[in-house]
């Protein structure tokens, strides 16, 4: 396993432990809440007659309304450790405990006048002498100018006051560890993408990490930067949008990593499902988040299972992380499980990425080896025994029989060696240099073979560059495999053509008895040319060879 996992795993353990052995709670029972429009100071009293109070009321403006909720405390509180309460209600309000005002959040009834004040969630301490075992009443005097339709008491959270104050920040501090990790991962993978813009999976991964970072911030920043209830919905909408994007991107990422058939169709269907989930339950962020992450897990699981079935690299480990994410989701609270699950999926992605990076490194190393091999092959061209020793034998003969010609031969040979020296380190050379190389080779071969060789060219764009010695290799093949025409000559012609789609070089050999045997098809010469073309143009080239009436034709096309 990869050592990169260790910090993440330990982080996960801390998190699970922290949430498992959570704060000590107190036992209490919460009764049904009743409400009434209007505003009377006496409505806070503990023993008020509630017969004309209703379970539900309609509110259309910023008027004040009251709510009363009975709470029965089942434990006797520890001495010197006060209780506290967080009412889960919208609006600006005052809280009364057994008729005593214990706190204020904003200015109920005067919101427009005084402007938004207070925060979404606020903890109130309960005086110790009022917090005994038994039944109590929480009365809340509130107004909801900005969301009058959100009237109601959604819950009364009762706990030790210090627990209520520290619970949020503690959870946030744990969760923000994830946020930091996600932000770093996002930046790292963005840099990776910027250095290689073809790797879209890296970009997707970076975006996923960044979105999860944003999601984490949006979810937890409220414990240190409280918000007014007015902007609560904006925050929830933002959370939903982020979750929607994440739910789309994670399976997209897996689709790129573990390709499967009919990808486009399935992704479109999946996007449809996500949008349906999003629009149907758009009033409850919790459910949307849960459903979308469920859909995301199911689809991702499907893709990964296919990957395992096809024995793709890394698929098995990712397959292990996905069900564990679901298990954690079953065992812990939703938000913890969401991040734990996502972290596990992230771990899976990290693993897949590390595998891909390894593959790329190997491919790169291979390409280096290949380049070196090609360079060697180029250097070898002039010292391979067939060329060198035959040339030397001919040279000896010229020197013995016609010394002056012998000198010219040596000069021609020197010229070719010189040209080879100039190009042996290059991966691309000007076409003019390549043509010069071919001509000097023909000069040498004339001395050796005593055949008249002719070189012609047409439409050459002098600005173009080509991999070294590819035409030289075709020329060598042409010389080796063909017999001269009746006038003891062999002609070679290089034609360059260019259009919107590609550039092409046509290399023609005009000769007799050009052989088409297997040695021509698979010769080391052609292998060299193909390897050079791949090195310089990846897959954007083609090489065709065919015999013609007058000899042989090679066409190299380089696509734009």
């Amino acid at each position, binding site marked *: 396993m990869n050592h990169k996992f260790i910090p993440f795993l330990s982080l996960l353990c801390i998190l699970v432990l922290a949430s498992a052995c959570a704060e000590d709670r107190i036992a209490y029972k919460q009764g049904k809440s009743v409400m009434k429009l209007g505003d009377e100071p006496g409505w806070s009293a503990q023993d008020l007659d509630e017969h004309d109070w209703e379970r539900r009321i309609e509110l259309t403006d910023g008027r004040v309304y009251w709510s009363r909720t009975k709470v029965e405390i089942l434990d006797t509180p520890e001495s010197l450790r006060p209780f506290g309460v967080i009412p889960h209600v919208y609006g600006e309000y005052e809280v009364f405990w057994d008729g005593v005002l214990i706190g204020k959040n904003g200015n109920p009834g005067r919101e427009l006048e005084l402007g938004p004040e207070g925060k979404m969630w606020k903890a109130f301490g309960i005086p110790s002498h009022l917090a005994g075992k038994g039944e109590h009443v929480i009365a809340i005097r509130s107004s909801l100018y900005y969301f009058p339709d959100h009237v109601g008491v959604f819950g009364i959270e009762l706990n030790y006051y210090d627990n209520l104050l520290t619970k949020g920040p503690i959870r946030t501090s744990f969760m923000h560890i994830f946020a930091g990790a996600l932000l770093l991962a996002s930046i790292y993978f963005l840099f990776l993408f910027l250095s290689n813009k073809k790797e879209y999976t890296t970009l997707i991964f970076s975006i996923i990490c960044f979105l999860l970072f944003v999601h984490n911030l949006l979810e937890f920043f409220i414990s240190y930067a409280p918000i007014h209830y007015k902007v609560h919905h904006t925050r929830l909408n933002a959370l939903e949008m982020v979750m929607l994007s994440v739910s789309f991107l994670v399976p997209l990422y897996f689709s790129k990593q573990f390709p499967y058939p009919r990808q486009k169709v399935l992704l479109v269907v999946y996007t449809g499902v996500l949008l349906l989930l999003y629009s149907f339950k758009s009033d409850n962020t919790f459910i949307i988040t849960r459903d979308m992450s469920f859909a995301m897990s199911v689809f991702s699981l499907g893709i990964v299972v296919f990957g395992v079935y096809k024995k793709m690299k890394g698929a098995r480990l990712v397959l292990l992380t996905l069900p564990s994410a679901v298990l954690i989701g079953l065992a812990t609270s939703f938000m913890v499980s969401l991040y734990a699950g996502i972290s596990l999926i992230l771990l899976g992605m990290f693993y897949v990425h590390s595998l891909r990076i390894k593959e790329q490194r190997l491919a790169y190393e291979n390409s280096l080896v290949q380049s070196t091999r090609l360079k060697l092959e180029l250097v070898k061209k002039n010292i391979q025994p*067939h060329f060198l*020793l*035959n040339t030397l034998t*001919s040279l000896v003969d010229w020197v013995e029989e016609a010394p002056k010609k012998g000198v010219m031969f040596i000069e021609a040979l020197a010229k070719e060696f010189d040209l080879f020296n100039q190009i042996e380190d290059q991966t691309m050379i000007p076409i003019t240099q390549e043509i010069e190389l071919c001509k000097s080779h023909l000069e040498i071969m004339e001395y050796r073979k005593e055949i008249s060789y002719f070189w012609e060219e047409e439409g050459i764009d002098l600005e173009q560059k080509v991999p070294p010695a590819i035409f030289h290799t075709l020329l060598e093949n042409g010389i080796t495999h063909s017999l001269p025409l009746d006038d003891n000559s062999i002609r070679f012609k290089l034609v360059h053509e260019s259009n919107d789609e590609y550039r092409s070089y046509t290399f023609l050999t005009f000769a007799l008895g050009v052989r088409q045997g297997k040695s021509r098809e698979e010769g080391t010469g052609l292998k060299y040319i193909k390897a050079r073309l791949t090195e310089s143009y990846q897959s954007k080239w083609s090489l065709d060879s065919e015999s013609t009436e007058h000899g042989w034709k090679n066409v190299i096309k380089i696509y734009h």
Partner: protein
Amino acid sequence: MNILIVEDESRVAKRIERMTRDIFGKDLQSLTHINTLEEALAFIESHSLDVVLLDLNLNGEDGFDLLKAAVSGSFHTIVVSAYKDQAITAFEYGVLDFVPKPFNQDRLTQAFDRIVSKERAEKEVKYLAVKTRHRIHLIPVEDVLYGKGAGAYTELFLADGTKELHDKSLEKLEQLLSNAFERVHKSYLVRMSAVKEIIVASGSKYMAALKNGVQIPIGRTRYKDIKAKWF
């Protein structure tokens, strides 16, 4: 002397030609130069030759097919090639000499001398190429027990009891085969490790009894030498 030069480098071929003429002078009856594989094969089939000088890399084609055809012929083969690393294989196939390029007249003379002086080949032959009706196949030399001269040809008797006919004369094979073989008789060349004992028959006839029971006559004049050398 009838000599064929198979070489696709015109200048090199001319050099071999010139030197060969120099070396043999009036003894040269015919000298032909061919630069393609097909023509060479056809020429070998239809002409009587004494020596073939062969380049193993003709027009980029593998010359070993031609080499097999050449060494199965009745003539001796001398390879003239730039690839020294092919020398061992060439000798194993049964060429008389391997002249590496670049060469001079002395080296070529030395090669030709082997033919004239009937000197043995330097390296061990591993295979004998035998022509059958449709193809040429290689017999490992270690399978050969003895050869019997049959006019211009040689009958090869193999360890598995079969018999093959080789186009080369017994004299030429004697030159190629290693010292493991001994010319015990005008018509016989025997692998000495296959000989179990020498039987002296009545009328001072000497026979070499092979391990498989076959008896091969030993020439009266050669008996002494063989006995001194092997027993």
